Structure formats: structure tokens, C-alpha cells
């Protein structure tokens, strides 16, 4: 187990280097000149442009820029944005917001999605099962911006239960509505995955054995059925957590949440290399760690799986 984890962590290093290099190249090939764009509609003054290019290290060849960036990164310096603020500070503002938003969405998926899937999987063909199927179908087929705008209009403007947009991105109670909207699509997937998985495993041999042993139904379901059925769901949730951490540009935009999606979008628009690479680097790490945790959870859920 220990060596397995160590090996996985060592594998992350080349993935990390490759990912940062790719993102660096991609930002570099974005069309347009970020320094000239600072001047907006007005003609850029060549002398000033040359000075600014030098200041942001943009007057160097690409490989030098990359090495310079990586060298700073190794020293814990993520660079500076055009606003003069350090990228670390920008991320320090945005990530806590996105983590809160992701937590709301993630909790919604787990604590509503799995029970719903369990119930409808156990009572296949019942009214509840049909309702869950129709409900999830509707959620899956509606684009998130429609859902978000309708929720904002109805709950925020018409009913006035909450403010239409988030007034303080750090207040988790204000993030509930955006979080529910953000989590709704994955909720539908989680419900359906759980339902199918439960349906399959109900007929498994070990289930018959458990029932034949005379175990109480509660134990049969929670110990034997649910645990084994959760493997595909956990796989999905793991990657979904990564996706949630990457921020949700559409949902964040509609509810005016100042999270990672918003930061990344602005940075790409301004072609701010350090910010884009910095944020994506952190996201790559989040993904890698999330997938490692998912793999380790398999062993917890299914006693047949062992890592050496």
C-alpha cells in the first residue's frame, strides 16, 4: 500500500511537468498581443510596450520564459498578474470560494443522489422509481445556464428568498442556490449510476448468501449491497470533484461568484500566462490527488481489491 502510494506520487511528477509545459505553450499560441491589449482601443506606445514586455519577461524566447517560470515555481513563486498582484494571492482569493461552492454541490450529490438511487434501485418499477427517472431525465436535458437563470429569476427575483446574485462569495449560506444548480446535473448521474448498480448487484451470489445467512435487511443493504454498488459511483464522484474544483464559468457568471472559473476566464481573456498556468497547475494536482484517493477507496469498498 505504502509503496503503491509512493509510486503514484512519483508518477505525478512527469504528468505535472508535461501539463504545465502544454498549458504554457497553449497560452503562448493564443492569438493577440496581451501587452498591446492593455492599451485598449488606443494605439499602443512602442517605447512603453517594450518596457512592459521586459517587465513581464515577455521579451525572451519561449523556452527561456518557461524555464524562468518553472524556476520561480520551484521557489514557490507563481508570478505576478498584470494588476500587479501576485498570482498566489489571486488564487488565495478564488480557491476558498470554489471549494465552498464545490462542497455544497458535492454534498448535494452524495446525500441526495445516492439515497435516491438506492431507493429507486430497490423498488424498481414503483412510482418513486418512475418519478426519479423522469426527474433526472429532465435535469440532464436542461442546459445549466437555463437552470441557473430560471432559479435566479424564480427564487431570487420573484420569490425574493435569496438575493439574485451572491453578495459575499465567502459566505457559504449564499452559495447554496448556485451550489444546488451546479450539483444538479451530477446528482442526476449519481442517482442513475447508483440505481443501475444496485439493480445489478441485488442478484449477485453474495447477496443471496447474505440473505440466506439470516442477516437483517439493513445490514444486507448497507454492508453488502451498497458498498459493492458504490464503486462506479465513487469513480464518477472523484472525477466530478476535480471538475467542480475547476470552477464553473457559467454558473459563477450568472450568480456573480468570484471563484476559480471566473479567475481563469478573465486570465485567458487577458492572456495572462502566469495566472492561467498557475491555476491550471493547481487543478492538475487536484485531479491527480482525487484520482489517487478514488483508487484507494476501491480497496476500502471492495475487499477483493488489494494494492501491493
Amino acid at each position, binding site marked *: 500500500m505504502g509503496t503503491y502510494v509512493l509510486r503514484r506520487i512519483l508518477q505525478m511528477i512527469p504528468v505535472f511537468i508535461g501539463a504545465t509545459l502544454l498549458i504554457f505553450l497553449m497560452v503562448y499560441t493564443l492569438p493577440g498581443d496581451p501587452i*498591446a491589449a492593455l492599451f485598449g*482601443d488606443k494605439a499602443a506606445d512602442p517605447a*512603453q510596450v517594450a518596457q512592459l514586455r521586459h517587465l513581464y519577461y515577455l521579451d525572451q524566447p519561449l523556452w527561456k520564459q518557461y524555464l524562468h517560470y518553472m524556476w520561480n515555481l520551484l521557489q514557490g513563486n507563481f508570478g505576478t498578474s498584470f494588476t*500587479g498582484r501576485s498570482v498566489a494571492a489571486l488564487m488565495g482569493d478564488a480557491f476558498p470560494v470554489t471549494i465552498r461552492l464545490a462542497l455544497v454541490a458535492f454534498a448535494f450529490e452524495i446525500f441526495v443522489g445516492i439515497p435516491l438511487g438506492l431507493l429507486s434501485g430497490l423498488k424498481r418499477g414503483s412510482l418513486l422509481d418512475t418519478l426519479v427517472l423522469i426527474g433526472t431525465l429532465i435535469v440532464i436535458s436542461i442546459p445549466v445556464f437555463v437552470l441557473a437563470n430560471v432559479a435566479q429569476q424564480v427564487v431570487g427575483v420573484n420569490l425574493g428568498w435569496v*438575493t439574485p*446574485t451572491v453578495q459575499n462569495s465567502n459566505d457559504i449560506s449564499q452559495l447554496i442556490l448556485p451550489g444546488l444548480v451546479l450539483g444538479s446535473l451530477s446528482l442526476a448521474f449519481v442517482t442513475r449510476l447508483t440505481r443501475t448498480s444496485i439493480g445489478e448487484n441485488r442478484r449477485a451470489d453474495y447477496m443471496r448468501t447474505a440473505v440466506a445467512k439470516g442477516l437483517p435487511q439493513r445490514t444486507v443493504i448497507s454492508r453488502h449491497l451498497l458498498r459493492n454498488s458504490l464503486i462506479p459511483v465513487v469513480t464518477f464522484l472523484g472525477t466530478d470533484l476535480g471538475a467542480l474544483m475547476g470552477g464553473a464559468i457559467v454558473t*459563477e*457568471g450568472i450568480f*456573480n461568484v468570484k471563484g476559480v472559473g471566473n479567475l481563469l476566464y478573465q486570465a485567458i481573456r487577458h492572456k495572462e500566462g502566469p495566472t492561467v498556468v498557475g491555476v491550471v497547475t493547481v487543478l492538475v494536482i487536484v485531479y491527480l490527488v482525487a484520482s489517487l484517493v478514488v483508487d484507494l477507496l476501491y480497496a476500502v469498498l471492495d475487499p477483493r481489491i488489494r494494492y501491493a
Partner: protein
Amino acid sequence: MPGATRVRWVLVSATAVALVASGCSSSSSGSSSSNANATFTYQSGEPQNPLQPANANEVNGGRVIQNLFRGLVDYDPSNSQIRMQVAEKIDTSDSQTFTVTLKSGWTFHDGTPVKAKNFVDAWNWGANVKNNQINSDWFSDIQGYADVHPKSGNPATGQMSGLTVQDDTHFTIKLANKVSYFEYKLGYPAFSPLPDGFFNDPAGYGQKPIGNGPYQFVSWDHNSQIVTKAYPNYQGVDKPKNGGVVFKAYTTSEAAYADLQSNNLDVMDQVPPSALASYKTDLGSRAIDSPQGAIQSIGFTLYQPDWSGANLNKVRQALSMAIDRDTITKTVLQGSRKSATAFVAEGVAGYKSGTCTACKLDVAQAKTLLQEGGGVPGNSLKITYNADGGHKEWVDAVCNNIRQNLGVNCVGDPKPDFKTARAAITGHQIDGAFRTGWVQDYPLNANFLAQVYRTGASSNDTGYSSPQFDQLAKQADEAATVQDSETGYQQAEGVLAQDMPQIPLWYYRTNSGFSTKVQNVSFDSFGNPVWTAVQVKG
């Protein structure tokens, strides 16, 4: 956990209902009395640069700077005329050397007095190429600018020879050339004074600016809001009638509009395109529709052989006369623009309607002119625009007009975003025509003409070069008074009507609104609210 979530929900909805209820009662009983100490919120965004006056050329930083600082002069929001602020008077006999006399009693927010030295030091600092100020070329009229801002290498000196401090309240500005309307430029935020402390720590002051304007800086919660409060010792003619402005960052105008409708935002910048059709019914008397000093045009690649021919001005006039501006502004643009009849936006000093003689729809005349001019090269026209600015709809409509009325094969050529389109335009990689426009730096016709149409001017993207226009512009620059300069530039505008280097399309308008908590909201020609006049109902 689901239980906890539900409890939170109830709490949130209960407080929200309570807030709405109290809001209702206060507004129904509220008369027009106002609370001079209450602040109001304005839709803004995170500034792109540190808050230094010579570094703010985008709206989010610009509107904060403009409230924290006051220069020698500003513009009267009601008529765009020059209004003296820190300056007592600005004298000149030859439109080249200006003697500035300051009023006494003005102080910075840190209590130090505003002296002549603060202006001179600030301008020298802003012009210095080493200080990386985006707006440094605003100082390029001043004698000695090239010394502090050389084309390459380090500046030889930190002082422009054209600026001389005489005493605490007097200094002189000597320009490299005559600029009769230089006073107008002085209202631009780049010409603000800076306190002595600034020069020790420019970066720190860029995060916590100290100015001399009607509002003083309180806090900058990055990506969330910038809070200001009224400065009690403000000496300007426009004393704030409210307690301060809170600039709230929004990522989209849709979100801001939803907040405005539910009174979570007091004044907004521009309603989102999706609300243009409905905002006047949504907001009633709280809707704003006022002119802005900005114009949108189609520029031609006069640097290409295709468009540099002698008779092709007639073709450009023909294209202009084939465009049904009134219908497009009403339908496609939903009343957010007003048809242009001149090369200068409506409302700025020196504006004269009707100078663009070919800006009226006249299909018969257009066909004749097209024939006389020898037709559009290749009988096809490509209009390049940036796809991220909501231009597609009107470019398609204009092309439809041109196709139907003149039989010219006209198509739009979208570039993914603004900076890509700008790079293509300034790099002369356009084939035929492109979307362009001009937003006033100061409300004077010279600003719309000199910077765009003069030979080699910094924003002359068409490559237009007319000795006649240049001559008239030079005369206007050397005129004795601003009024003479305005008429001079009107004559120069006549040359443009003949040559048609650009087709003026329409003037921008401010389509905005405000919440029920504020009153007396009006907008100036920069598209900014008259900040100090806004009253918060008390």
C-alpha cells in the same frame, strides 16, 4: 447534513423576506428626502492595473481614479464645457505656453496641501518610460517629453523641460507645438496631482491611493468591491450629495441587472443586451437613456491599392448611403444607438450635425455614385470585426443593406476577440473594411478628428492621409481660442465628408437604470453617472 442544509435554507429565506418587507415599508413611506451620509453601490469590475492616475485607461480602474482625484479642470456634465477645479485660471497668449494658477485650500486625503509641485512631479513621473504607465503618451505634447520617454533605452533625465514650478500656486507648461485646446486634455485623469508620499512607494499607493477628489479611498476587497467615502474637506465645485460610492464587482451585466431589480445594486453601468427591449418597462422612470461621446464606424484599408484610388471616395459614399441606419438602430440594436450624421459624436463641444453628407439613406444616389466610382473592387466587401463584442448582428444587417441596395457581395469577417481584431487592424492585415470606433478622451471635436484622421496619427488605422485635412487641423490647433479651434476642426470635418475614409454609423447611448433607493441619477457623455449628484433616499 441534509437536515442542516434545510435549516440554513429557512434562515436565509426568513432574513431575505424580512429585508424585502422592511425595504417595502421604507420605500412606500419614503419621500424625496435624502441622507447625505449614506453610500450607494455601482456596477463595476476588478481594475486591470494598479490605481495610479496615469495607469488607468480601462473603465473599472478609470471610474475609481476619477472619483479619488481631481485635476486642474474637469468637464461640466450638463454641457461638456471646461470647468475649473484645482486651477484658479489657466492663461495663455500663444496656445503654447500656459500659466496655471492654483486655488488655495485644496488638500490631499492625507491632509497635505495640493501644491504646484504635486502636479509637476506627478506628470514627470507618469511620463517617465521607466514607470510603465499605460497613459504615458498623454504627456507627449509637453516640451521635453522625448527626454523622459525615449523611443528606446533609458531616459536621460526625470524632468520634462516644459514644466516649471514658480511657487506653491503657480507653474507653467510649455508645449512642443501649439495646441489651442490643451485645456481640454487637462481634464483627463492622467493629469491628476499626486501627494509627496506617492513617490516613495508608487506600488503601495497603487493599492491604497490617496487623492484630492470628492471621495477618499477606504478599502479594496479584490474581485469583490472598492469602497470610498465622501471627503469632508473637498474643495471642488461638485461637493458630494451622498456619503460615498461602493464599486461592486460583477462578472456579467445580467447578474448586475438581476441585482438592480431587487435593490441589491443601486446604479448600473449598462443594461445587458438581453434586457434592452424590456428595461424601460421593467424600470419605468428609473430607466436611463442618454447620449454618450462615442461613435461607431466602418474603416477602409486605404493603405491597400484596392482602396487608394482617386475615385473610390465615391464608392465609399455610395456604401454609406446604402445603409439604413435608422432601421438598424431601432430593430437590431434595439434603440441602444442613434444614427450618425457627422464624424464626431453628438453632445461633444464642436459637434455639428449633418457634416457627413453621405450618411443619409439614398439608394438611387448611391447607385449613381457607385457607377461613377467604378464599383467596389472585386464587387465584394469583407467587414472584419471582433466576435466578442456583440457586433455580429449589426454587421450582418449592414451587409444585407449593401447587398440588397447595391448588389455588392458583402460579408462579415469575425475575429475571435477584441485583441485579435486589434492586432489585425494595427498590423494592416485587413482586406477591405473593418469595424472601428472612437470613445472620447475629452468631450471636444478635435479628439474625434485629430487622433483618427491625421496623417500618421496614433489611432489612424485606415492609413488616411490628406494634406488638406492636415493643413486645416494644424490651423485649428494653432487657433487663438478653443472656440476658434472648434470651428477650425468643423472645416476639417468637411474634407472627411468628401474623402469618406470611414463610414460613420451611429452614436452610442447609455442605457442604464437605478434602484428605488437612490434618486437624482443622471449620466454624462463619458457614460458615467454624475457621481457626486446621486442622492440616497433617507
